């Protein structure tokens, strides 16, 4: 009996110690890491729905995320998130075309649509080996990150111009991630889901588009995080953190794709020629921006011609933090881009808040894919 009591006491003490140390460890974590742990815990205990649901029809693929618990301010890249793989039909090997994409925030209780301010981003990645391997385009494999697109706060829906689409086979696998956002709501705790709608067609023959992602990167020094903004050189930055979104250029400089902005208008430029890596004259038909609140204007310039390819006049909310609209570019005619030209991204930011805010600036471009079009024509003639 005494031995049992002693054993009970030791177990209880260890348990208390674990709870206390666990609580201390959790409280020291960043908001982003707390959200990861919280979401995992709530999902694994089935306190909130942990499952993705997929529903496909002849015209669309509807993916509904697990439930996300919103109990805090979650800035960009901080909120609860979920990922999954999907294919249209793993038993079919039929050519289809994606034509439009939408992401919405919903109430898990009644499926009613909630504010788009609760959507940080939704990404789709294709599988390089499957997508390019199928068309025997082996020289394209491992050449760029296989991101098809990202819909984000400010642009939650878009359609390719009429007559264009993204070709894919029914059994082709895609990887999606969706992340929640909450810049403003502090007076309530609630659950949300994200619903993604991908429209596609099987019957039509469209012109294929090839995706390309480019993103702004700014140089920084590792000790920059401790310096006041006045001491930071022009067109360089203070990174949000130095683990993720940190890159190195050929000169060995460290660059960040996720940096802090302050309460003053600021212009940043970035030479995007190398990232664009245009090998042959191409036509761009769709451009989707990815920006954070307090972005003001985002432009892609042809420096050689001194022309503007795309400019995004950002509309920020006036009464709260958030993006009302980040207009995209869509054109059947398209704009020609050249392998010999120099291209530049230019971003103007202006925060209205005293505390520093975080910024990212990317573009998702879609070029007419002539090489794949020839292959698809031959494939259609054979089938």
């Amino acid at each position, binding site marked *: 009996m005494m031995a049992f009591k002693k054993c009970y006491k030791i177990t209880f003490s260890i348990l208390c110690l674990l709870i206390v140390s666990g609580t201390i460890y959790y409280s020291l974590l960043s908001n982003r890491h707390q959200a990861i742990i919280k979401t995992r815990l709530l999902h694994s205990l089935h306190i909130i729905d942990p499952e993705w649901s997929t529903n496909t029809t002849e015209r669309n693929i509807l993916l509904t995320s697990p439930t996300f618990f919103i109990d805090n301010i979650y800035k960009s890249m901080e909120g609860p998130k979920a990922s999954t793989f999907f294919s249209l039909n793993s038993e079919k090997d039929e050519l289809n075309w994606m034509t439009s994409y939408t992401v919405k925030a919903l109430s898990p209780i009644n499926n009613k649509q909630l504010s788009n301010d609760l959507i940080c981003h939704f990404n789709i990645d294709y599988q390089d080996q499957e997508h390019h391997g199928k068309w025997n385009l*082996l020289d394209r494999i491992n050449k760029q990150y296989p991101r098809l697109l990202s819909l984000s706060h400010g642009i939650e829906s878009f359609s390719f111009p009429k007559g264009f689409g993204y070709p894919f086979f029914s059994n082709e696998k895609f990887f999606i991630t969706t992340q929640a956002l909450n810049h403003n709501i502090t007076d309530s705790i609630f659950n949300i889901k994200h619903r993604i709608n991908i429209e596609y067609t099987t019957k039509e023959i469209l012109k294929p588009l090839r995706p390309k992602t480019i993103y702004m990167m700014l140089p920084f020094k590792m000790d920059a995080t401790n310096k006041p903004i006045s001491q930071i050189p022009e067109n360089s930055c203070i990174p949000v953190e130095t683990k993720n979104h940190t890159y190195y*250029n050929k000169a060995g400089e460290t660059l960040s794709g996720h940096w802090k902005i302050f309460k003053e208008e600021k212009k940043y430029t970035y030479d995007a020629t190398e990232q664009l890596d245009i090998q042959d004259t191409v036509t761009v038909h769709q451009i989707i921006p990815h920006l954070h609140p307090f972005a003001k204007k985002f432009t892609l310039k042809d420096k050689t011609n001194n022309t503007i390819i795309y400019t995004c006049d950002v509309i920020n909310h006036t009464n709260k933090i958030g993006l009302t609209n980040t207009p995209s570019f869509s054109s059947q005619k398209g704009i020609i881009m050249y392998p010999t030209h120099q291209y530049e991204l230019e971003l103007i930011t202006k925060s209205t808040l005293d505390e520093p805010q975080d910024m990212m600036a990317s573009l998702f471009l879609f070029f007419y894919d002539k090489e794949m079009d020839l292959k698809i024509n031959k494939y259609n003639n*054979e089938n």
Partner: protein
Amino acid sequence: MKTNTITMLLLILCISCSKERVLPILSNYIDENGTTRSYLINDYHFTTQLGNEFTIENTKGKIYIANFFFTRCSSICPPMREKLIDIAATIDNKNFILTSYTIDIKHDSLSVLNRYSEGTMISKDKWFFLKGSPEELTSISEKFRTSFSTTQNSNDFYHSSYVALIDTKQQIRGFYDLLNSEAVILLKEDINLLLNE
């Protein structure tokens, strides 16, 4: 007797209703004439970390995964190796093996590969570290729908972080990014799916 028949019928009905996920066959491509061509991973000749031949005979009747690496790689190889050790340790089935092809054939001698293999603590008849001629390496990397380069580029990897999953009929059934934890979970599920096929 009647009850047994009903139970059996219900069981058959349940089995036929619980639709198992099907892994597509990915070792096919559309040629320059628009015709779909299938191929098998059945013609190769490599040497293992123990100096033995590694050919189609070693993979007959096996489910296996294949990746490219080099022992001096300090960027993506260490986390890839960790995931592969976990997969090798988790999937305890004699019909499942792992193959890793070195792309650094000058430095990665058989003794270097053997030492690297010993560091994994995985049986040498389960995880094969393979070395071949540059021609063999290029040929098999094309079949596995991957590529590698020998010059470091800040925007590119030396090699991909993906593994290919191959079935007992020498067909590719999936590609998985070892640096993506969701993909590793799916890979384990798919290996078990093929082992139970």
